[in-house]
């Protein structure tokens, strides 16, 4: 008890000692509180209300959450989200890592720099522009893909207009799926591995695959974890792709929970229900992030005895 009180006192003393630093941080803390924490708490609070976002709401308890469980569109959108989540996770740990490995092991540093620039340069183009180009590719009447199918003597497809394949068309979008920033993060991870480890691997006679799985992957597990978390968050929160390309259609074929939340909140003025969906998405993201950080272990983390 005495020790706890001493610790508290020393903490307060430390804070008081650095009071000017805390004073300078205060505006930032206040702004974060207003613009980041307040909306989040407000969403949680309003998830228990029937609220249109503009006029005072009516308290309805857990009703919005009960509606969620029975909402067939939300249920359908969750299955779409799971598919996109798995796909996003696979993409996060494959194509950018594969590209980073190839660039890292190039013999010429200059060539490596050129490739690194070429992969990262498209990042400066807004993703919406890329999506609009892809929408042209998928256009059933004048699009690129149907033109190619025509050359090959194959029947045209309706792509985004076909409820059976629209979701897969969205997944294919962005091929070959090398995200420049992810690739840079992996590359930085590989460059951080001490060269002595690679030398010893060569001396031991391990082949490239053994080196990749036994050395590279465990030692860049921190980066892999980070990119998986980002992919999970992106897949759960993201809806702009669906909004621009398909508006969640045809029917509800490409609907995702975040887009359904947006439509309910903004288009249908059911802000209370949208808040309930948002809070649920937060809980899912939080749990998945926790599982990821807790159970996927990084090769550079060591347990004390």
């Amino acid at each position, binding site marked *: 008890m005495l020790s706890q009180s001493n610790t508290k006192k020393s903490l307060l003393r430390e804070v008081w000692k650095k009071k000017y630093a805390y004073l300078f941080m205060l505006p930032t803390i206040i702004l974060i509180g207003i613009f980041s924490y307040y909306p989040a708490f407000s969403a949680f609070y309003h998830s228990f209300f029937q609220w249109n976002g*503009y006029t005072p709401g009516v308290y309805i308890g857990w009703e919005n959450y009960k509606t969620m469980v029975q909402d067939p569109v939300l249920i359908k959108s969750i299955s779409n989200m799971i598919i996109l989540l798995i796909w996003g996770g696979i993409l996060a740990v494959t194509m950018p890592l594969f590209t980073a490995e190839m660039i890292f092991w190039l013999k010429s540093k200059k060539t490596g720099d050129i490739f690194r620039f070429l992969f990262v340069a498209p990042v400066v183009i807004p993703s919406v522009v890329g999506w609009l180009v892809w929408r042209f590719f998928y256009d059933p*009447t004048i699009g690129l893909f149907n033109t190619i199918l025509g050359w090959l003597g194959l029947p045209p497809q309706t792509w985004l207009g076909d*409820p059976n394949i629209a979701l897969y068309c969205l997944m294919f979008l962005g091929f070959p799926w090398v995200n420049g920033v992810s690739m840079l993060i992996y590359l930085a991870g590989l460059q951080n591995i001490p060269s002595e480890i690679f030398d010893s691997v060569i001396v031991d006679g391990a082949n490239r695959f053994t080196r990749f799985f036994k050395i590279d992957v465990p030692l860049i597990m921190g980066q892999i974890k980070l990119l998986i978390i980002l992919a999970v968050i992106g897949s759960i929160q993201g809806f702009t792709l669906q909004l621009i390309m398909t508006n*969640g*259609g*045809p*029917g509800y074929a490409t609907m995702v929970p975040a887009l359904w939340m947006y439509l309910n909140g903004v*288009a249908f003025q059911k802000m209370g229900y949208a808040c309930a969906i948002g809070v649920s998405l937060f809980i899912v993201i939080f749990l998945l992030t926790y599982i990821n950080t807790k159970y996927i272990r990084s090769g550079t983390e060591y347990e004390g005895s």
Partner: protein
Amino acid sequence: MLKKCLVILFAVSLVFSVSLAYAAKVTIRFDPWAYRPGVPPQNLKMMNVIVEEYEKLHPDVKIELVGTGAYGGQDYVTWIQTRLLTKDAPEVFWLNFDQGWELYNRGWFTDWTPYLGKPNPYVPGNKRWADIFYPYTFKEVRAPDGKIYDIAADAVGTTIVYNKDIFKRVGVGVPTTWGKFMDTLAKIKASGIIPFGNTTFAPCCPGYHWVIQRIQGGLIPKDLVQQLDIDKSGRVDMRELSKAVVEGVFRADLPFFKESWRLMKEFSKFWPPGFTGQLDLRQLFLTEKIAMYHAGSWDIPVIRDDPNRKFAWGTMYYPVITKQDSPLGQNKLIIEFGMWGGLQWYIPSYLPKEIKDIAADFCMYVSAPQNLERLILEYGGDIPNVKGVKAPEGLETIRNPKGVTDPLHGMVLFTSEFMDRYNREANNFITDKIPFDEFISRMQKLFEDTAKALIRDHPEWGIKLQ
């Protein structure tokens, strides 16, 4: 010396600021919507001219043209609601009347009725401003509480535009009945051309309700319309439809409703591949990929003035559904014409009376026939609602006194959530994702859910839920 200078400086600045305050003009922010000057491709100028003229007449008033430039859509509705909530909306703002119906019970809008009873000083001999408008204008925009929150100085409509050269090549004429229309579509399709452009995810407007309302308007029995249209306004508003749904008068399994979707599905064979996705129909038409499409009146000046168009084009009426085409055919010419134009004016309710009076005065000035005609003819895509104002050329098939509008307006007058779900379920049915009976049962549930929600939100309607 320095002290003296400071005193003089203070006195001069005091006099200057007081005189500035006295000279300050009242600023009225006005959203010109589709009539915004300088926006490509039309680069309109007339609204600026009208504003300058008004400011000359009223040197104490400044008219500032404002707005988002986002023509319609949810982003605009969100923007204007936020502005209204923070009491910072333009003094005269644009909103479709049916969008206004979803919001009027929040008390944000001014009722125009007192102003409509006053004379318009810019129209010689006018005793009531309301008299310069066609009476149907107020019938249509009147909110379910009986008040008029929207002055609609113009209207829009839709029509079929067709490629005359393709019709000539294929050897077909303009069809007048549904059966002949289907034959024409089949012949065009056989020639390798996509006959008709339709889409459910257009950049501007959902395509389904335009088409289905023509079909439903041609099938709905007269006695049912009389039963639904309680206030005899010529169209069924959200209050009337909600009442009919909860009382079981209007159901998705009514024969006319089911027949309309049977015809719709038959029609869909002639639409472009991928019609359930997003298609730019005007572009497909201008590049001769489709032989015809269902165009808005605002498309007409763009098609007419397109420098790259290499074919002759025309507009045609929607074909009439006769008894031979369907046992429920009513043999009626259905036109699509409604108060969704670029000149719709709302005034926020929170403004002081003096500002409201000035805002209303400017609207009176713009609506005067000599001013409105200049705006309407320059833009070319809207139809005037003021008597004696010439309509632009090319819109003849949109406004025809012999035609009747669909009283249900394709259900667009319900809610935006209803329309979203309606279109998606229609997509599911037309693309064979769900069978017909399932579609009808989902539609019925949608009608019931929407009607009950609306009745709960509008206790002032006095409709009881059982």
